[in-house]
């Protein structure tokens, strides 16, 4: 049986190249991620750091480890997807061989084992290839994470044998999981199929496919309804819509054998004027397995990538919008504590509210809903010292409980979160972490503030807790209201010449914050989704190459019938473009649903439906997909039509 697997494997190695590569990349990524996670889990913390810096460094390491963990799961999941679609092809191509084995007395169990053996071989090849690639992958990921400032420069990631062992094991498991469905299908091939001239291709919409696809579709409808429902604020809408991007993409890719030909019919009504075009359109509907296999990864990629990018982007834009709505001021000045306090003395300035970032760790004991257990939440950023009166005059924000009026002396205002509840009167621990003024005190919660989208300025403490000397060099930003008849340009000029800081309008400041958030989003998306993009490209190329090789005889027949080689290539290209357009559009439908869901939530929270549709990214993905598919189709169809057609048409299997 092993020998039979081996010979089948060797005979069809072209078919398996894509799957081997995707397992290899998966193994390499798992190895690299493990290496980084192991090193980041027990990181070298430099001596002599103050506790705040140490806390932030640890946070970054945790972030890096989390990111690597997610990347690993994505890689394994997508590799299973590619391996399983490759084997689905392999079984469809070999139905006659498999039936012949049954005729010659092979048991169902033996056919299943045959396929599983091929899966193991594929896993072994992938693991062997992935091992050296892993060392390159660890460099790339380390570089990326350093660029994104998760890891410090010169971070060392020592290799250990178990990283490779776990990675290779994952490769094998991935290959076996991928081949499982195909092996079950192989066992169902009836012996009689060996004798029939027209080997049945087997059904595309298998029962598990139906069940999983419809389940995902139902979840998508549910999530969309939840996102659009009255009670859904921005947080709920974003969470459900991101879920929708995932379930919707999976649903359409699972149901692609139904959806893609349907979309092809619609497309066919629009185009198909020339004979070549009509041939392409007929082929698209006829070659369901081929067009579905090409479109499915595109659907998932577009839905996931654009859906997530759009969600995060909209969240950032909405946060900016919320800041603009909340801040009642004319200018924002960014500088230090000492300098913002001088703003009030300038001509034309009516009110100044300085928000000074305090280097402090605040530990709050919160109620997480379990009466037995209280949890400690630790905050080390977003803690600002304010003048309560000025703050209230420049911020349209109502406390949910208590009042900012009482924010004086040993008092603190905190923001709620969906995860826990803070009661008024709770005593918290606050530790100021500057070498000169290190001290600890225990303020009482006097106000609970509503959650904001930006999450900035989450904890407010009264200014007078700190001496002017302490505050002098802490970073700060001030909201400035002008006198009714003051000339803003003059005030800006006065601030500039007195060197009191960088001045911007509220709008500019909010959009700068948005842009900063967006950059961070893009970085994280690059790490995670770049990977998915790579896999989607591999899956698409894999499907194109396999199906072109499979169509050798069909191409030859078309040429014997009178088409030139150019016409055959052109017809295949038109078909491929149509499939690409269908895949991108179907993914776009999901993205549209995601964005609509988010828009509703943002509108309910802010009164305006501000969303950020990632048009540039969409253009890049669609363009990239067209380029990849065009090149893959052109090259593989050229290769498949190299031999004189008559040799193929007359050849017997």
């Amino acid at each position, binding site marked *: 049986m092993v*020998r*039979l697997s081996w*010979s*089948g494997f*060797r*005979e*069809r190695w072209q078919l398996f190249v894509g799957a081997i590569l995707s397992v290899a990349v998966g193994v390499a990524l798992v190895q690299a991620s493990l290496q980084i996670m192991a090193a980041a889990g027990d990181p070298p913390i430099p001596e002599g750091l103050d506790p705040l810096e140490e806390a932030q460094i640890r946070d970054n390491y945790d972030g890096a480890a989390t990111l690597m963990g997610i990347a690993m799961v994505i890689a394994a999941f997508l590799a299973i997807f590619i391996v399983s679609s490759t084997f689905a092809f392999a079984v469809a191509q070999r139905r*006659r*061989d498999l039936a*012949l*084995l*049954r*005729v*010659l*007395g*092979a*048991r*169902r169990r*033996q056919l299943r084992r045959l396929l599983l053996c091929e899966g193991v071989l594929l896993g072994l090849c992938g693991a062997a290839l992935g091992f050296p690639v892993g060392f390159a992958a660890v460099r790339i990921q380390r570089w990326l994470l350093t660029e994104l400032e998760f890891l410090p420069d010169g971070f060392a990631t020592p290799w250990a044998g178990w990283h490779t062992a776990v990675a290779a094991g994952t490769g094998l498991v991935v290959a076996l999981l991928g081949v499982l469905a195909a092996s079950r299908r192989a066992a169902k091939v009836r*012996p*009689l199929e*060996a*004798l029939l001239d027209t080997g049945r291709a087997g059904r595309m919409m298998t029962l598990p496919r139906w069940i999983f696809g419809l389940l995902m579709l139902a979840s998508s409808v549910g999530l969309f309804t939840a996102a659009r429902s009255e009670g859904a604020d921005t947080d709920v809408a974003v969470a459900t819509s991101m879920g929708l991007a995932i379930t919707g993409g999976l649903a359409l890719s699972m149901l692609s054998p139904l959806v893609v030909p349907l979309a092809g019919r619609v497309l066919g009504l629009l185009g198909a004027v020339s004979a070549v075009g009509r041939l392409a359109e007929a082929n698209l509907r006829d070659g369901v397995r081929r067009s579905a296999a090409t479109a499915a990864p595109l659907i998932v990629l577009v839905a996931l990538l654009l859906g997530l990018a759009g969600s995060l982007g909209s969240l950032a834009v909405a946060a900016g919008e919320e800041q603009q709505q909340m801040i009642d001021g004319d200018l924002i000045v960014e500088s230090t504590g000492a300098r913002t306090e001088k703003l009030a003395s300038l001509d034309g300035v009516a009110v100044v509210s300085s928000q000074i970032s305090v280097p402090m760790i605040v530990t709050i004991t919160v109620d997480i809903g379990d009466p037995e257990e209280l949890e400690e939440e630790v905050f080390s950023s977003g803690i600002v010292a304010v003048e309560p009166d000025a703050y209230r005059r420049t911020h349209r924000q109502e406390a949910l409980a208590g009042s900012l009026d009482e924010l004086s002396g040993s008092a603190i205002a905190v923001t709620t979160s969906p995860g826990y509840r803070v009661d008024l009167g709770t005593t918290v621990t606050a530790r100021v972490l500057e070498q000169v003024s290190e001290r600890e005190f225990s303020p009482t919660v006097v106000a609970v503030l509503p959650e904001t989208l930006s999450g900035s300025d989450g904890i407010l403490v009264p200014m007078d807790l700190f001496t002017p000397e302490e505050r002098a060099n802490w970073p700060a930003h001030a909201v400035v209201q002008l006198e009714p008849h003051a000339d803003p340009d003059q005030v800006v000029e006065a601030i500039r010449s007195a060197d009191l800081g960088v001045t911007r309008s509220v709008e500019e400041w909010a959009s700068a914050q948005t842009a900063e958030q967006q950059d961070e989003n893009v970085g994280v998306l690059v790490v995670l989704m770049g990977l998915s993009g790579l896999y989607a490209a591999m899956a698409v190329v894999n499907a194109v190459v396999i199906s072109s090789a499979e169509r050798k005889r069909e191409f030859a027949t078309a040429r014997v019938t009178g088409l030139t080689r150019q016409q055959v290539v052109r017809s295949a290209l038109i078909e491929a473009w149509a499939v690409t357009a269908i895949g991108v559009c179907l993914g776009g439908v999901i993205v549209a649903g995601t964005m609509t869901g988010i828009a509703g939530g943002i509108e309910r929270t802010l009164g305006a439906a501000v969303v950020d549709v990632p048009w540039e990214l969409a253009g890049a993905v669609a363009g990239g997909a067209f380029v990849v598919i065009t090149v893959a189709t052109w090259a593989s169809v050229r290769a498949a039509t190299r031999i004189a057609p008559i040799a193929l048409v007359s*050849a*017997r*299997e």
Partner: protein
Amino acid sequence: MLATDHAAVELRGVTKDYGRGQARVRALDGVDVDFPTGSWTAVMGPSGSGKSTLLHCAAGLERADTGQVVLRGTEITRAPDAALTELRRADIGFVFQNFNLIGSLTAEQNVALPLRLAGVRVSKREIRATLTSVGLGDRARHRPRELSGGQQQRVAIARAMVARPPVLFADEPTGALDSSSARVVLDLLREMVTDTGQTIVMVTHDPLAASSADSVLFLSDGRIVDRAARPSAKDVADMLAGLEDGERHGREA
């Protein structure tokens, strides 16, 4: 357990329909026939008369709608898949016109395949000897695509010879061969019947091939219409021509 006085394969009142409603075709219509152990029977008839269907039902590849098929003492029309698999391992061999061999295996690996599947060890020498006896001793390591159609056919016969199945089903085994290659194949089949007492059921269109068999069965519209023992090629051709004429008149009437 085996009753040797039994026929190797018996069909009792076997019918088989394809399709439903308007498109319904009765491929076999109440077929009763015995294929005696150690005999070689040729099945003939016009195209579409049900020859292949008869073969498939007799071999358990297709289930008869009504009636019974008894293969070496086992009733197979209602046998579960596992039992049919065991039959294919131990009792039945196949040779067809096309698609006989696994493309990724060499000739000798193809020949050894049924025994390997059954977990029986075979010596390389025995495989080579068999391939030599069908005239392909020097092609053992060739893959099917490196062999001509007739050579592929002979590899399939070598495969049936090595496994020595008590019953061999063949569907147009000489269909694609020139007359001298066909002669070689027919001689090999004859050896199997006389030397090892195997039973052969062979569908053919070729009167010459049919005349090599012990008896010839004529099928028309899913029914057995005639049977002849050791007819000459000319007798067979005449009977066949009569049958086809009859069919044409029947259709015109």
